[in-house]
């Protein structure tokens, strides 16, 4: 058992194990809705109630017709997760009354879902862990409610009927970190398959963990609490950690955990009660009488399997083998398909003598830093891949030093100009001339005799400060390795 699986309350003898399962709802990026031809629109751009027809408004006498692309997308995800795809699955009605559900029921799948028994491998600090996937099924989204204070709410049905894929895991998670890693890995797969935007903020990908605690070593399950309203991976990890702690404290105090749905309050960083959950029986599921079974031909399924693109996991493995990257860096690069594509394009332009590992580090450290600062997504990197390769080649060949390289990259990021051009204009070409550097070092030591003396008296940290002075004197152009050697030499000799 991994150490991350243990949860102990400080100062108490009793320790608990968290048992966590995950339901993920992914809006499928189809053009039209699940059961009617209404367009799927961006919730932030379309005016309310402008993408609604009698079918998704739940008008009497209408009939649903299944969207072929939604089925295909769902099967692609199921195959990517190693599921068994059911050749015959059934739609079912999930009945409940709520104003965002015009028909009074949601068309979903229940007893015979689209697919079952998949898995996804995550890479935790403690090693690999396989998360089992219980089921993958198709359903439709609800409308959107806006609560306007104590006297009224508003209903927009644009989202009602948008295709949703629900992906349910077995309760295989034991720690908040595992939950986040799984959600990130699943998001990457959905984006590689091109079936979902991966946008947690807009609710295109909704992650709902359910959490229960049990005494360490117990095989039974405790009462589970579901958390909704998580719109970032950070919120997901924090909410799960918070909820584990909250339940542990309740159990320690001898109180029972109630089966409820909690929401995550981002401002206060706490979970808050949303509603007492309806029992499964209360949904009164029954087979959807308006839809015959969904029947999929084996040859069609196999065709989709054969046409699956390279997925993040496989691509990361290839990056390790083909480019000699560490597993960690490969994992970071493949998470966004656009970044992985960018890396491979740049790698083609790299000088033969330069290790792709150096390029990977420039992307995952310096370029990511600039992207985060500017809020630029992987699809909008303003530095052409070939130009980044040129820059890395210049640094690796010792033509400019790494510090200058970072400055050049920042400028390339700002104005999209080429690496060689910036180096030439700013006169950043690295100087490795030994006599020139020796002169810089001796001048610096002469200007700072006190520091030089304190180094010789044993204060070795002064070396870094002196090094900085020499580099400044050279306006950042001196070859740092030679400067360091020269400094040590002169300080030792004098």
């Amino acid at each position: 058992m991994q150490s991350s699986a243990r949860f102990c309350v400080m100062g108490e003898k009793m320790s608990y194990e968290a048992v966590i399962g995950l339901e993920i709802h992914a809006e499928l990026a189809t053009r039209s809705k699940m059961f009617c031809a209404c367009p799927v629109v961006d919730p932030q751009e379309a005016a309310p109630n402008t993408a609604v027809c009698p079918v998704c408004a739940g008008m009497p006498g209408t009939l649903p017709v299944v969207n072929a692309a939604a089925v295909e997308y769902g099967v692609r995800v199921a195959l990517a997760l190693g599921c068994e795809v059911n050749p015959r699955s059934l739609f079912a009605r999930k009945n409940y009354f709520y104003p965002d559900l015009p028909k009074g029921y949601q068309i979903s799948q229940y007893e015979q879902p689209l697919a079952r028994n998949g898995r996804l491998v995550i890479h935790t600090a403690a090693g690999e862990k396989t998360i089992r996937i219980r089921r993958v099924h198709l359903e439709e989204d609800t409308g959107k409610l806006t609560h306007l204070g104590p006297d009224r709410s508003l209903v927009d049905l644009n989202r009602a009927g948008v295709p949703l894929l629900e992906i349910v895991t077995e309760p295989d998670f034991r720690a908040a970190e595992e939950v986040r890693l799984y959600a990130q890995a699943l998001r990457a797969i959905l984006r590689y398959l091109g079936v979902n935007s991966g946008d947690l903020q807009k609710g295109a990908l909704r992650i709902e963990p359910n959490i229960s605690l049990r005494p360490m070593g117990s095989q039974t399950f405790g009462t589970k609490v579901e958390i909704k309203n998580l719109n970032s991976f950070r919120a997901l990890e924090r909410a799960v950690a918070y909820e584990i702690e909250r339940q542990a404290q309740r159990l320690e105090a001898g109180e029972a955990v109630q089966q409820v749905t909690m929401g995550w309050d981002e401002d206060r960083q706490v979970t808050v009660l949303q509603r007492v959950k309806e029992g499964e029986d209360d949904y009164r599921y029954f087979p959807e009488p308006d839809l015959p079974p969904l029947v999929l031909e084996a040859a069609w399924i196999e065709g989709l399997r054969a046409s699956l693109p390279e997925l993040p996991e496989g691509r990361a493995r290839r990056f390790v083998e083909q480019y000699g990257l560490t597993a960690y860096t490969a994992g970071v690069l493949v998470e966004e398909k656009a970044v992985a594509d960018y890396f491979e394009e740049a790698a083609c332009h790299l000088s033969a003598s330069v290790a792709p590992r150096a390029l990977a580090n420039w992307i995952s450290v310096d370029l990511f830093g600039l992207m985060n600062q500017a809020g630029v997504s992987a699809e909008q990197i303003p530095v052409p891949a070939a130009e980044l390769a040129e820059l890395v080649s210049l640094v690796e060949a010792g033509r400019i030093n790494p510090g200058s390289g970072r400055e050049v990259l920042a400028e390339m990021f700002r104005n999209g100009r080429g690496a060689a051009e910036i180096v030439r204009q700013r006169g950043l070409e690295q100087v490795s001339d030994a006599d020139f550097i020796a002169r810089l070092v001796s001048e610096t030591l002469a200007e700072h005799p006190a520091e030089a003396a304190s180094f010789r008296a044993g204060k070795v940290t002064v070396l870094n400060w002196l090094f900085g002075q020499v580099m400044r004197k050279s306006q950042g152009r001196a070859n740092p390795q030679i400067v360091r050697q020269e400094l040590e030499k002169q300080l030792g000799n004098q």
Partner: protein
Amino acid sequence: MPLSIEEVRHIALLARLELDEEALERYSRQLSSILDHMARLREVDTSGVLPALGPLTAAPLRPDEARPGLSSEALLKNAPEVEAGQFRIPPVFEGE
């Protein structure tokens, strides 16, 4: 198969129906007799028979092509109350 008053009350709550005592009593009798009839059907041995869910054996699929639906004016025409292009409804509170 008698259905208790409590069960009928619960079903009414799920259906958001408000029933008085007399109605609860009446529906309990009526629903129980429907269940009795279903119980008789369940006596037939159907092991090995696939459920016939409808006349079609496979759902027809629709190509993923979007078409405009109703105008929002037409959609909202029968709404009791409208505000900002949306259906206005009594307040809904989370935790209800």
